[in-house]
């Protein structure tokens, strides 16, 4: 699927209930998968109209608020929301709920405290980023053994999944007995990761492993490793196709697949349940899998 067809479905008015899928930055491959999954799933179901959209970039909070408002305006029956900010989107979610729209939260969990304050209860369908990062990190720990020196590359400071992944990596460092030398952000970007890690390596020539918060950055990191012909292993997150060769070659010990496509599908299913009057609450964890040399296929 070259273009995001989901939206075109919404064009003609039908009797079917409309489910609004609101994501952040569709420019991000992960959300692209997520949307594709949703489109396919809806096609399978056949009794739903999907209206999916995403923001320009991941930090565009009020852009996403506008998206939610659009869904309210269009009087969708349900909104499946992958929030750009776990707290900033709570109000909009509550507003939608008040407007009688079923809201399902996917990908990043809305902040509980904030939800309470807004007096809204929104079910969450999604993976545990922290646990995922930890699992991926543990693979690295296993590969390197205790006491190995590692660094972390973080995502956008302030982005929730960035924070959770960082925490997960920290857990892995603690539990795996790794020695953390430094932790810096490269804003999810390949080029910046190349620069930041390059300098980290200059500053700490004895780095043995890198915990990277997404694959895009991992690509930049691996470039540095290749350039320096260093023996450094990488643990990452997202499992985009581009990293496959590196998993096979072994530079990348592990990455994490949180099945974005599945998530959206599940989200839609729960939305349908709610539309049909079922009560859904709490956190429905979606599966995550650590991808390594062995299961990369």
């Amino acid at each position, binding site marked *: 699927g070259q*273009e*995001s*067809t*989901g*939206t*075109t479905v*919404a*064009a003609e*008015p039908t009797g079917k209930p409309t489910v609004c899928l609101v994501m952040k930055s*569709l420019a991000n491959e992960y959300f692209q998968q997520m949307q594709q999954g949703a489109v396919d799933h809806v096609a399978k179901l056949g009794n739903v109209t999907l*209206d999916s*959209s*995403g923001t*320009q*970039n991941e*930090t*565009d*909070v*009020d852009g996403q*608020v*506008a*998206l939610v*408002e*659009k869904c*309210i*305006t*269009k009087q969708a029956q349900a909104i499946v929301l992958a929030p750009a*900010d*776990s*707290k*900033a989107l*709570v*109000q909009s979610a509550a*507003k939608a709920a008040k407007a009688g729209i079923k809201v399902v939260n996917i990908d990043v969990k809305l*902040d509980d*405290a*904030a939800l309470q*304050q*807004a007096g809204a209860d929104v079910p969450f369908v999604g993976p545990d980023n922290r646990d995922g990062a930890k699992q991926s990190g543990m693979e690295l720990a296993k590969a390197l053994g205790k006491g190995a020196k590692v660094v972390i590359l973080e995502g*956008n*400071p*302030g*982005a929730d999944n960035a*924070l959770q992944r960082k925490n997960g990596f920290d857990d892995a460092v603690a539990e795996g007995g790794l020695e953390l030398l430094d932790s810096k952000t490269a804003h999810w970007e390949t080029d910046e990761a190349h620069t930041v890690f390059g300098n980290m390596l200059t500053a700490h020539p004895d780095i043995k492993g890198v915990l990277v918060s997404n694959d895009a950055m991992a690509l930049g990191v691996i470039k540095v490793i290749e350039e320096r012909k260093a023996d450094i292993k990488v643990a990452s997150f997202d499992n985009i196709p581009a990293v496959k060769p590196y998993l096979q070659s072994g530079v990348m010990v592990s990455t994490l697949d949180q099945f974005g496509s599945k998530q959206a599908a599940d989200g839609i299913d729960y939305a349908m349940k709610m539309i049909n009057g079922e009560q859904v609450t709490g956190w429905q964890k979606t599966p995550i899998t650590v991808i390594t040399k062995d299961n990369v296929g």
Partner: protein
Amino acid sequence: MSSISVARGNPRTNRVVSQVLGEAGIGVALVALGVFFLAFAPHFGTAQNIRDIMTQITLNTILAVGMTFIILVGGIDLSVGSLIALCAVVAGTAMEGGGAGSIPGAILLSLLIGAAAGFINGFVTERWRVPSFIVTLGMLYVARGAAQQYTGAATIYSLPESLTSFGTATLAGVPAVFAVALLMAAVAWFVLSRTVFGRLVYATGNNEEAVRLSGHRTGVIKVICFMIGGACVGVAAIVYMARLGVASPILGQGYELNAIAAVVIGGASLSGGRGSVIGTLLGACLLGVLTNGLLLMGVSDFQRTIVTGAVIIVAVVLDAYRKRLSTRLSVAS
């Protein structure tokens, strides 16, 4: 050329047409866009959606109004986007968990920070005659870093009820926050077109040397404009928190471009001396309507991005045509 033949028409009608066109500004393009969406974007005309549009353009309107002052004196401010984050997190922290009582202080704080940053931008630019582009670019980094440092990248929420409820309140169907924006625009318009200061702002942007020769302290005028711009950012920060109930250090990325775009689409010249608050207002509307309409039409995100860019270009080109035609006619009549 056709325009000539037009010009050959009856002088009186020419004059009328030219006047209308001359005043209309980017409004022409805006109306065209509106009509188009009314026809093709479901729900576009609904009261609810009009309100949404108003809320959605509020921030950019406020920022753009401030930016107008800066651009009129030939400056530019790239720090807007980070500065709003800084103002928000600091003021937000001041209000966090607090009651209505904490609001006035926070507002004052936000305004002060904004104005102070504006002062630095303006003062450095003026005192050492360095391009404001680069000074405010520096400020962009400083403010962003400061905001993150201040909160440790944490998002601030649980702001006073009365603030957030103001963010969703409506006066006679008009969102309160938008009313604030309109009010600010009105004041700005009055200051720029009626007061001595306002005229000196235009004059300075037009030919600073001449204004200095006439015994005015252009440096002061310019610095004040930067401070006004900064103060507007302070207001925007409060409005942001009122609307979204949170303040995060990463908010506002890229706002500067939208604000500048609104001003320039509104007919201002980046070399200073030309532009108007009305134009800016229309520019902000155009951008807001465009985003909103395309969303309602359900255009895919990527195509939406493309169309947005294309429409921006077409709009200014149309406007250029308009200007020429109107001058042609006025010459002819």
